[in-house]
């Protein structure tokens, strides 16, 4: 705590000195949920500093933006609900219902409804974010976790950590149409933006399964090998594709690295050293910067996507978990740094 407060004070100092020079420039704001601190850190993508800290409910984890970019939606897992904050003013807007222990939310491509995995009751809950009501519950495997949405909005992919499957569910009628076995403890399901593939990371299995959603089959399995790191420590979680789907970035947990994978040949090209226990990844909308949440070292690493290099670490709150960028550059609310 003390450490973080000092860091925040420093950030506030540099902010005010900058403000003397020029007016606040518009930049993307990166929202990082801090699981153990019950806050969301707001990072300015130009300054690469924490410019604000939002107080949230208990155990904030999965974090996304509404389709219009106006709302930040956070799963506050221990409160068994989600919270909505204004992306510009950082003010609390409202609560949204979920099942017990919501972990990862995803929106339908049309912007509503929202689908959220409830880790504690083997259900995915469908929520109308405007009405604030639960539409229905979909039974899935044990400990539902990862949530992927096909770009055409027709298929939702949910992973279950103890059942070790990717469940394909239709968004029209909520029918479970296929259950694909992947390796142990699947965490994240991510579609390529052209819908041609969905990648599922397996944290304990140590692999990423490439699934063809048309055939509903695993077509390839990606393995990782890092010299000097035992296989056990390579635990893939977050997966993101670059703008043209040519490369994938895969967060490898306690291996403290992000793998860069050729998304056509599935060859691992490179490992970028980041902070400790890296879990989730988020691009700025221009795909120039990638932010990684490093749970154990309480920071995010900023990766320059063009050069594939880590350019900065930014201290956040305790145990940063999820990350999402604002859709457009936002003028800083300028209400100081962390309180």
């Amino acid at each position, binding site marked *: 705590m003390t450490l973080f407060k000092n860091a925040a004070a420093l950030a506030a100092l540099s902010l005010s000195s900058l403000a003397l020079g020029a007016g606040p420039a518009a930049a993307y704001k990166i929202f990082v949920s801090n699981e153990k601190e019950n806050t969301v850190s707001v990072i300015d993508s130009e300054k690469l500093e924490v410019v604000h800290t939002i107080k949230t409910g208990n155990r904030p984890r999965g974090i996304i933006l509404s389709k219009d970019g106006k709302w930040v939606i956070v799963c506050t897992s221990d409160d068994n609900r989600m919270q909505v904050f204004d992306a510009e003013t950082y003010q609390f807007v409202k609560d949204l219902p979920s099942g017990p222990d919501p972990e990862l939310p995803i929106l339908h491509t049309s912007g509503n409804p929202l689908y959220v995995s409830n880790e504690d009751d083997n259900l995915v809950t469908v929520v109308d974010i405007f009405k604030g009501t639960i539409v229905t519950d979909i039974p899935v495997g044990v400990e539902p976790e990862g949530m992927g949405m096909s770009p055409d909005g027709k298929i939702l992919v949910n992973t279950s950590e103890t059942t070790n499957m990717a469940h394909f569910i239709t968004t029209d009628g909520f029918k479970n149409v296929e259950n694909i*076995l992947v390796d142990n403890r699947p965490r994240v399901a991510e579609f390529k933006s052209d819908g041609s593939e969905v990648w599922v990371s397996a944290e304990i299995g140590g692999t990423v399964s490439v699934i063809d959603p048309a055939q509903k089959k695993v077509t390839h399995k990606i393995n990782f090998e890092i010299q000097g790191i035992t296989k*056990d420590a390579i635990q893939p979680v977050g997966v993101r594709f670059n703008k043209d789907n040519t490369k994938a970035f895969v967060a490898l947990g306690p291996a403290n690295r992000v793998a860069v994978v050729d998304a056509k040949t599935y060859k691992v090209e490179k490992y970028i050293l980041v902070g400790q226990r890296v879990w989730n990844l988020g691009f700025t909308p221009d795909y120039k910067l990638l932010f990684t949440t490093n749970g154990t070292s309480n920071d995010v690493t900023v990766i320059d996507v063009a050069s594939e290099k880590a350019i900065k670490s930014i201290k956040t709150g305790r145990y940063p978990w999820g990350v999402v960028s604002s859709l457009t550059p936002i003028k800083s609310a300028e209400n100081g740094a962390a309180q």
Partner: protein
Amino acid sequence: MVRQLRPDRLPPLSLLDLPPKDDGLAGARLAIDDNNTTGRFLKQNFALELIESEDPAELIAETKKKVEAGIGFVVTDLDAKPTVELADALKGLDAVIFNASAPDENIREEDCRANLKHTAPSRAMLADALAQYLAWKRWGNWVLIVGPAPEDKAYADALRRSAQRFGMKILEEREFKYDPGSRRSDGGFEQIQQQIPTFTQKLPPHDVLLVADEGELFGEYFPYRTWDARPVAGTAGLFPTSWHPAIELWGGTQFQNRFKRLASRNMRPLDYQAWMAVRSIGEAATRTRSVDRKAIISYMLSPEFELAAFKGRKLTYRAWNGQLRQPIVLATGKMHVTVSPQPGFLHQYTELDTLGVDRPETKCRAYNK
């Protein structure tokens, strides 16, 4: 699941530690539920049958009948001797036994059996886990208090082996003899408060006092009562265990919650060990997409088999004696303190093999075929 009822076993000192009637069984039940949630998607169904008796011979005969009638997987809560006897009785049948309770070294070593796997950690694994942490703390000077029961002596043997392995010194050993008497009474602490300081007087200068008391019949008397102000570890104070009801690491929270909803109590190590056994079967059935016991058994023996069990890494069975590799939690009554293997204890294959008897040292020959 085969359970040996042990009505003559003395209850532990603390009311908090009284074993519930479904100790272990509830863990197996949760794993059946977990297997069936997955099985629903693959059209597989799992069911649990319970065989209980005070008489090991009856348990073995009953189990053999069930196996001959088609059951392929047996989870045991038995002492070491009947565990091996059961394995011999089932020899040649298509069945595999998971020892979920007995920590004895011999049934993993010289008396190992090819149809016997172990989800319970061995005493050597537990002692190594503790010794690594004490080495990390640089608490290398030990004194050892050993109870009179054979299992206390076996636990002390494991501690001596670990001390040698990790360069710790046991400066003195004392046997704690006692007459258990009645477990529950309205008084008692007045005398204990006098007795333990006297008993621990004039020990050589040490960093930590270790207690070997598997029955939990006197170990809890030592913390805060020793002559010297030293921490207590072993079976009391800081103890090594496969599971602790306060673990929230590695997705453990949801696992603990699921268990509590099912059993209306906290998950104990025996529950966890039975859960791992039944989940191993489910995992193999899922991966082979088969309910054929031969296929499942052969998959479990293959290097592809791995189990996710809320320990932050995959668990696998040692190919030389059927022991499940697993991180060991070091905890006090309320919470975990750390998890071993400790940083810096390296191994050419997996750090988990720094805990317990490793391949080059094993006396098990049943798997060499």
